């Protein structure tokens, strides 16, 4: 079997899903069931523990790994506080670090992300930092002991696809940790593209939650992720600009004999 190992977990599904944008929480279990997703991210800021209100956690199937995120954190200190609160409220040891000090584009603050990661790894969390794809940051994150690195495909909520492809590819080549493309994936074909090039998984929220039929879209994403992964494992063929038969540059070697 082709498992994705994060921390001590062995995962079969390589599609992680977000929960923040659905028109109803009732869609969450349906999306998870049809897609086979095993990792679900939830913003701690959104979890409502008031008994008179709906608690999103009740809609997440028990077999899933809960990955609370630190959405709303503006610096490392706030991210650390949110992570601790999440663990104290029974959300487990996984934490997706999200530090955003730019409310205009919502791009992650890599420096603060490294700082928060270092502290939380020491506190025993399974840390998955969301980041702008930058090799040096990814190396630092690896060095402080994170369990995976989650570069963005394009700014969150834009559905623009894998605009950071070249930079993400470098992370896949250089960092010996699962690279999970988070944010920006707008279509199943883009998820497949990320998987084909060797991403360990993708995280999708907006594209599923705001689709005309979120459940069908979740299924489409699950299939695309599987297809992309299979293609990666199979080894995609070499792309060529001209037909194989001719060798305009080295053909002379045959002609002149050796």
């Amino acid at each position: 079997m082709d498992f994705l190992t994060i921390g001590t977990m062995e995962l079969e599904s390589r599609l992680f899903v977000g929960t923040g944008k659905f028109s109803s929480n009732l869609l969450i279990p349906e999306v998870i069931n049809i897609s086979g997703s095993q990792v679900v991210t939830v913003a701690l800021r959104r979890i409502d523990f008031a008994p008179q209100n709906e608690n999103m956690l009740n809609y997440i199937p028990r077999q899933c790994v809960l990955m609370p995120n630190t959405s709303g954190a503006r610096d490392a200190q706030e991210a650390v506080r949110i992570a601790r609160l999440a663990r104290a409220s029974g959300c487990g040891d996984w934490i997706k670090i999200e530090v955003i000090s730019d409310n205009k584009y919502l791009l992650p603050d890599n420096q603060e992300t490294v700082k928060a990661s270092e502290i939380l790894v020491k506190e025993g969390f399974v840390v998955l930092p969301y980041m702008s794809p930058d090799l040096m940051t990814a190396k630092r994150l690896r060095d402080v002991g994170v369990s995976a690195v989650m570069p963005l495909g394009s700014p969150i909520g834009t559905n623009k696809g894998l605009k950071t492809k070249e930079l993400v590819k470098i992370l896949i080549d250089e960092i010996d940790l699962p690279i999970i493309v988070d944010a920006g994936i707008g279509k199943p074909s883009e998820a497949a593209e990320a998987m084909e090039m060797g991403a360990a998984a993708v995280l999708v929220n907006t594209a599923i939650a705001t689709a005309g039929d979120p459940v069908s879209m979740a299924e489409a994403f699950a299939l695309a992720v599987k297809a992309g992964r299979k293609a990666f494992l199979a080894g995609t063929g070499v792309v060529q600009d001209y037909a194989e038969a001719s060798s305009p540059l080295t053909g002379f070697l045959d002609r002149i004999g050796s």
Partner: protein
Amino acid sequence: MPKHLLLLQAFLIESEASLEQKFTVLKTIVRKTRRIALFMSFYDIYKNYAKLDIKDFFSRIGEEQILRIIGKERLSAEEFLVLLSPVARKYLEHMARKANEITQGHFGKVIFLYAPMYLANYCVNRCVYCGFNIDHGIARKKLTMKEVEEESRSISAQGIRHILLLTGESRKYSPVSYLKECIEVMRNYFTSISLEVYPLETWEYAELIIAGADGLTIYQEVYDEKIYDEVHLAGPKKNYRYRLDAPERACQAGMRTVNIGALLGLEDWRQEAFFTGLHADYLQNKYLNTEISLSLPRLRPEIGGFQPKHDVDDASLVQIMLAFRLFLPRAGITISTRERAELRDNLIGLGVTRMSAGSSTEVGGYASKDKTEGQFEVSDDRTIKEITKLIYQKGYQPVFKDWQCI
């Protein structure tokens, strides 16, 4: 010594805050001022655009510009103004489709809910449009801590987790120390506390943040400086600049969310909406750490019987909202119960992200039996349950909690 330094001195020497709190406030101020060493104010931008002849600008807009601007990803200030023009009115449906797409991408299919809580209606200002005007012989009241507790219990029992606390302007009856006390009580009931109070000094905002507040709503009421002077007859609110810079002071103090707006009806709405958008853009660019959002409050009937000089019909309100969304794609947009139910229902999907629900504009309006006069008449008097149901029917999820004090 300048007034703000005198106030700082008073806070440091006389306030009952702990040494640790005083130190934190000082540290915040020093850090912020260092980071933003020499800065302009939105007033400079206002002054610059106030010279613009908007009528002339509008007369030169060609229809062919509108669709091109709607198709763009980032708009300049001038392009934003084009979307507020009479010519753009014919393209509301096009603007609405784009606004819907942007809002869903950034916020998803959700509407955040909150409720206001009036703590006190004592006021020293003479604002011609407001029910709390000092000249109005209405019953004045301020909630005791026991009443704050009762009101909090009553509102939170209905599911509300984000509260907006309001007062009139009275440093005597509702001073910062009173607000602080209220916040400390309310923290046990709500996960997010915003203020809508008279403008404060930076360190006063910082003090309230330490106490547990995370948001500020403050409307300039009217950006046109001349009209501002005409409708604010007397009181500290007459100081245009002090109010204009208040949202900026809150950003400097480290407020998480700052919500601004113009009271629509006091002056030509196209111009007022333009300045509101520019103000939000200015704050958003300068204070990346603060979430800037916008409100579109239309003047409502109040006890003084003030008649708005400029009519803002529903289509105009929609045009403002759509132009805001296209100019500031990630800004939150709030619609309160000032607007009637039918209109609010149809605004979902057009860019609105936050709504008040089950609101009372009276001091002690939720739990207390003795009624006082409201600040204005509420138009949408549906219960929180009814609004929740309606939002679901519209294909959106009502969300009560989007922040918690960390």
